[in-house]
């Protein structure tokens, strides 16, 4: 019976693959119109050249490996096979192709951000000797300018104390980066070492200064004409909302996760199920209801209202992850403390909270990153250019009533993704471990 089931499973899979290969893909190809629009460069049988080039590269790799192994074998008088070297070479070739695939959009957006001509939708091909540039596969770098970026920063007034804070914050960030590089070189992994503590402190200083800057910047400082001149304000709004949402997520989930992990009260299991299943309702479809609630509270078009609207969606996952984390910590220390007469609250604040710092960072970051690129809820709750978030602003560049402004969109994308890129790469360790720990638990 099981053999039959397994066979029919494979047979169904085979049929599906066959259908996709022999029916679906040909029908897809038949949907392509065989004509070239003006300015479109098409090379008949170009794939033959490309394939030839690829095969040539592979042949070169094989030849190089063979020669290199031959020379090394001559010198050391050993007889090693050259195939492992070929494998390495081919792996690198493959990795480079994947890198090109991964970074091609990044390259395009970077190029567009430095191009003042908004060239994405231009019919005339650039005058260039390079076929790739003429076909506009590679961006045309002949006219680089900062114009798009200048438009984003147009008319911003920065007070001297803010400039000073910005400078100190930038120095702190540089110090963090330099220390990180230095510690990697000397192989210092402990966060308790001298340099580790210095790095932690400067990171804290950077965070505090950044937060103060975000709070003290006001819409009055953005005097530029046009919506795009408010971009920095949008970044500030987004950072503010994401930061507060992240902190709220930690505050709300920490005690709940502790209770679920350590207390044995009646109703714990059903309540945990409620926490999980409630989250499966498509959250933002409750938007009209949330909107009515926030509007009755008189918090429309305020960041408080937006944060409250987000707060419903952040509880379950954080509680779940933090509970899983606490369950992986031994209880013995807490039990000893309880016998010594400590209260549950003292156990939580004195013993568990210091241990949980990495998990709090993970929950905060996850919420921060998630909120940063949110735009649907923000779009509903915030009105007026001055309270927009980055996501809303970017949508406006591509779908606004004016024609699509790719140059501005590109420049804003580059600047707008920087905070998240920095966070992600800076805290990569937390993300990777937190994600895998959390999802394996789930």
């Amino acid at each position, binding site marked *: 019976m099981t053999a039959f089931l397994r066979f029919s499973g494979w047979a169904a899979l085979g049929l599906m693959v066959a259908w996709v290969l022999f029916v679906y893909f040909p029908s897809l190809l038949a949907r392509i119109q065989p004509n070239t629009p003006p300015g479109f460069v*098409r*090379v008949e049988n170009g794939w033959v050249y490309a394939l030839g080039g690829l095969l040539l590269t592979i042949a070169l790799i094989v030849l190089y490996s063979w020669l290199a192994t031959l020379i090394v074998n001559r010198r050391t008088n050993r007889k090693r096979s050259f195939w492992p070297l070929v494998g390495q070479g081919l792996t690198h070739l493959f990795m480079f192709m994947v890198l090109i695939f991964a970074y091609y959009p990044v390259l395009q957006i970077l190029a567009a951000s430095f191009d003042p001509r908004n060239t994405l939708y*231009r019919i005339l091909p650039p005058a260039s000797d390079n076929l790739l540039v003429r076909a506009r596969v590679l961006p045309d770098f002949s006219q680089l300018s900062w114009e798009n970026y200048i438009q984003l920063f147009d008319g911003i007034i920065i007070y001297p104390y803010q400039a000073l804070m910005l400078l100190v914050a930038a120095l702190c960030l540089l110090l963090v980066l330099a220390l990180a590089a230095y510690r990697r070189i000397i192989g210092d992994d402990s966060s308790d070492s001298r340099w580790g503590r210095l790095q932690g402190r400067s990171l804290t200083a950077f965070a505090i200064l950044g937060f103060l800057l975000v709070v003290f910047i006001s819409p009055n400082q953005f005097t530029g004409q046009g919506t795009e001149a408010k971009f920095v304000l949008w970044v500030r709004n987004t950072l503010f909302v994401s930061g507060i949402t992240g902190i709220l997520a930690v505050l709300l989930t920490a005690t709940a996760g502790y209770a679920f992990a350590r207390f044995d009260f009646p109703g714990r299991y059903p309540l945990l199920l409620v926490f999980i299943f409630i989250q499966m309702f498509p959250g933002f479809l409750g938007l009209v209801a949330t909107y009515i609630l926030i509007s009755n509270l008189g918090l429309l078009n305020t960041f408080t209202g937006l944060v409250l*609207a987000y707060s419903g969606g952040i509880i379950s996952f954080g509680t779940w992850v933090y509970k899983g984390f606490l369950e992986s910590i031994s209880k013995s220390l807490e039990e000893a403390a309880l016998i010594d007469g400590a209260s549950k609250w003292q156990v939580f604040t004195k013993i568990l909270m210091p241990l949980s710092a990495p998990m709090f960072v993970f929950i905060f970051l996850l919420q921060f990153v998630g909120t940063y690129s949110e735009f649907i809820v923000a779009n509903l709750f915030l009105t007026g250019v001055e309270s927009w978030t980055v996501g809303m602003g970017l949508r406006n560049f591509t779908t606004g009533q004016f024609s699509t402004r790719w140059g501005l969109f590109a420049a804003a994308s580059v600047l707008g993704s920087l905070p998240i890129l920095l966070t992600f*790469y800076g805290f990569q360790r937390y993300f990777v471990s937190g994600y895998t720990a959390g999802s394996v638990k789930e």
Partner: protein
Amino acid sequence: MYRSPPGARGFLIAIGLLGGALIVATLFGLLMFWALQAAFPRPVEEGYPGYLILIFATLVLIPILVVLGRRVPYLTDWYYLLPAITFLLAFTVFPIVLTVYYAFTDYTGIRNGKPDRSTETQIVRVEGRQLFVDGNAHDLLRCDQPNCAGQALEITTRTQRARVRAEQATEGVITLTAPPPFTPALVYKINEFRFIGFRNFAEIFSRAGTVLIPVLIWNIIFAAGAVFVGAIPGLILGLMLNNKNLALRGFYRTALIISWAIPVVISVQIFTAMLNVQFGPINRLLGLLGAYPIPWLTDPEWFKMSALLISLWLGFPYWMTATLGALSTIPDDVYEAAKIDGANGLQTLTGITLPLLRQPFIPLLLGSFAFNFNNFGLIYLMGPQPGVEGRPSTAQAADILITWAYKTAFQADGGQAYGLGGAISILIFLLTVAISLINFRFTGALKEVR
């Protein structure tokens, strides 16, 4: 130490006490708010902000909780859950309940239960139940029923407002069902929404053949396909990068997670620009290889392929990282033993590595399926879709259930049919629960919780 009464009794007592405290606090907040309004009336347009209710409620909740905690010590265990539960009740449960209710009504952008400010009508004089207006009351208020029978109205003065119901309206007189609580100056029509039972669901299922079923099938294919196109390349990359002799290993690993780190709101929009039929770099590149321009975003079937292509770009770093994480837990001596037994590379891969990856991968695969099943951001951000014959504008070629629901509920071309959108949401909820139950069954997560 204190002990809670065991079983359902302890649970019910705790829930009852906490719920009671919350209700008492909320009522107190409301009372204080009304008292404030009555004592120091403010104009209707700039009334006291509603969040004062929350502040008053919190002010009284804290002493109640302290007293309760003294009298019933085991209740303090619940205090750790109280912030989370309160927020969950207010900003998740309440909206869900309201949405479920709306799913059984004909709530739309127009019929939203709010007064229609364009029907503002001056009241000249009030006599008992009768409001006198200047002109034909039925035309001024634009009533839905003849003679405004049963029409809901809002009456206001500068500082007060109330909802009333009309019995009938003749030439210049509106007769209410009861005398107004104050002497009103203005009257508006309220655009009521009505309870319509299962009619929204009936509408969804009556057109199931053209909308629900195709959308659901594509939704499942998309979710499975997105997992597949992310997981397979990610797995291959992870296996390649796990080779400890490979130079630049750390560099590749770090460099390749770029697409995970860029906010989706940015990367998807970049891709839609790159996939433009005539101007997009991707078609230009394929043109150099001899292809004719591919209608990535203008042909319904190719639009689906584009969605999967973007999923590939977005998804592989996660799977690469997951593979590397899972591989790092496999001890080296397993491989050494295989080597001693004379296994070649392929045998090691199919005999050891892949079977060992299965255990950690199943929950990740199911979780990723559940995520992509409701991957609103990707599909929505890809922008306007090519039309499909016979389908409404809210459920086009690549629309999945959640974008269909969103467009139905919130976009003008869906008529802002919030009731209908709510009905679709309930279906999505049931499907998501079903997927998650399968997930839990496979991974045994719920048993572990016990």
